[in-house]
């Protein structure tokens, strides 16, 4: 997965990625290929780590729609990253039910441990974190998710967060 991409260079998708695009497009009636936009943006983000303007232009070309139709969607939905993130983006639920069981102390702990503010990337390029709204895991809070697989980590404590960060570092360095 590339973490940083030259935003001036046009993006050419690999044949493997295009095959996945084609599979998505086949789910909709003829002429309704725009329905594939959200799933395709997820595929692009999983491949590159974020969705750059040139990548969106290439998606628009692939789906035979205007670039603006891609931009407006990518900027509306919160899951798409419009700038590069750390390899692991820790997204912590901050809404009501998680908040009353301790989401804020978890976010403070992550900020302190990683040494970066919400939305920033650690110097080694490995981590970013941010608070997000309700993840529909309210009975297992505090909870965080990590894309692109969107694995959930539930019933968080500062200890379990430390272990998670340690495990991810070890995984990245191997």
């Amino acid at each position, binding site marked *: 997965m590339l973490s940083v991409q030259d935003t001036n260079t046009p993006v050419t998708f690999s044949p493997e990625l295009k095959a996945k695009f084609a599979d998505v497009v086949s*789910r909709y*009636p003829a002429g*309704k290929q*725009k*329905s*594939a*936009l*959200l*799933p395709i*943006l*997820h595929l692009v983000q999983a491949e590159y780590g974020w969705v750059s303007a040139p990548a969106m232009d290439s998606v628009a070309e692939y*789906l035979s*729609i205007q670039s603006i*139709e891609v931009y*407006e*969607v990518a900027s*509306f*939905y*919160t*899951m*798409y990253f419009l700038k590069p993130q750390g390899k692991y983006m820790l997204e912590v639920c*901050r*809404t*009501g*039910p998680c*908040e*009353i*069981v301790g989401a804020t102390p978890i976010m403070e702990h992550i900020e302190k441990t990683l040494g970066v503010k919400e939305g920033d990337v650690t110097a080694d390029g490995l981590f970013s974190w941010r608070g*997000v*709204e*309700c*993840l*529909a*895991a*309210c*009975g*297992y*809070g505090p909870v965080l*998710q990590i*894309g*692109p*697989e*969107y*694995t*959930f980590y539930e019933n968080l404590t500062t200890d379990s967060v430390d272990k998670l960060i340690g495990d991810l570092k070890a995984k990245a360095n191997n």
Partner: protein
Amino acid sequence: MARKLLLEHINVPGINTFDVYRSKGGYAAVEKALKTLTPEEIVEEVKKSGLRGRGGAGFPTGMKWSFLAKPEGVSRYLVCNGDESEPGTFKDRFLMTHIPHLLIEGMIVSSFALGANTSYIYLRGEMMPQIRILEKAIAEAKAKGFLGKNILGTGYDLELYVQPGGGAYICGEETALLESLEGKRGNPRIKPPFPAIAGLYGCPTVVNNVESIAAVVPIINDGGEEYAKIGIGRSTGTKLISAGGNLKRPGVYEIELGLSAEEFVYGDDYCRGIANGKRLKAVVAGGSSVPILPANLFLKTVNNEARLMSYESLSDGGFVSGTMLGSGGFIAYDEDQCIVRNTWNFSRFYHHESCGQCSPCREGTGWMEKVLHRLEYGHGKLSDIDLLVDVSKKIEGNTICPLGDAAAWPVASAIRHFRDEFEWHVTNAHEATTRNYGIANYADPLNAVVA
């Protein structure tokens, strides 16, 4: 033990696979429906069952189905709403994770009843693990002849696809969901026309919640009349309640509608009371949008009758002293929780999730968030409290979709029931930043406790 219709086999090892699910009677509803019933008869059974939409609005599912337009030569669609973004609600995630074939089975029966040959399950994008689970289950069902062309030799064709969203609460609103499924921003549409007339791609469409579709399976297996015998009054059948917050045993419970609220919170089969030996202060009974109630009003109505977990009992007293069953997203607050902070948290959520289409919601949710923030952080004025009520009234009813109402109700109800806690945040501003107000007189009389 109460009857379980959806989660009966939830603890059977391997129930997420086709073979085990089938060995427990799975897909019998598909065989019965496709081989022995007409689409009209299925709709009739669902009407008889009294099933009401499990996503939050509680509209009768059979009636919704009967509104579907059936012009000649035009495709019809069934879209399953798995956006599940209402704070407090996590029942659909649980169902799809553990017993995905129940949803697939319900989708096949429902699609047949509605005459749909292509159906979509729209899940919030964060549910990628559930998308993988469902796609695997769909492939299994297809390999066994329950999906695809000429299902079970009946001549009925159905393709089923899972569609991810992009992380937007608003896409749980059915017309926003359809916009999103068409690859657009999730801006709700002006109704009419309703989706039953012009929905996905302008074609007649039914949008149903995950749990509603799953409930069609026992309705077809046992018959609508049998289903209607469970529950109380117009609240028929069973309901998944996802319980979170300060409970001893949070989780997803299938209850028979009509269970007493007290039993649900304190009963051994359910949440087993409040965690850490604390006391219940307040309850949000059906997802963050519904009015919050103090413990005493949640457990008993103003007429001193025991409150029941049913559509009617929870709304007894209207918004003055009642609330709503909503989506079944149950949140319990213990004596140490701060109502002002919680209300601010919710208003931040709605401000974040407003699509921005209607000014009252786009602007109003931001104002409410700002005013509540300054109250919580000790910079509020007494006049702010009435200002919040005023803003909430100007949002409510003045927007295209119910997100405006959903943002207004938690604020209005928190002030209605907990006004002295808001006032204390102004009159004791410094103290309010160092400790919480405590349970006060909301459950039963007690001096404010130190958090």
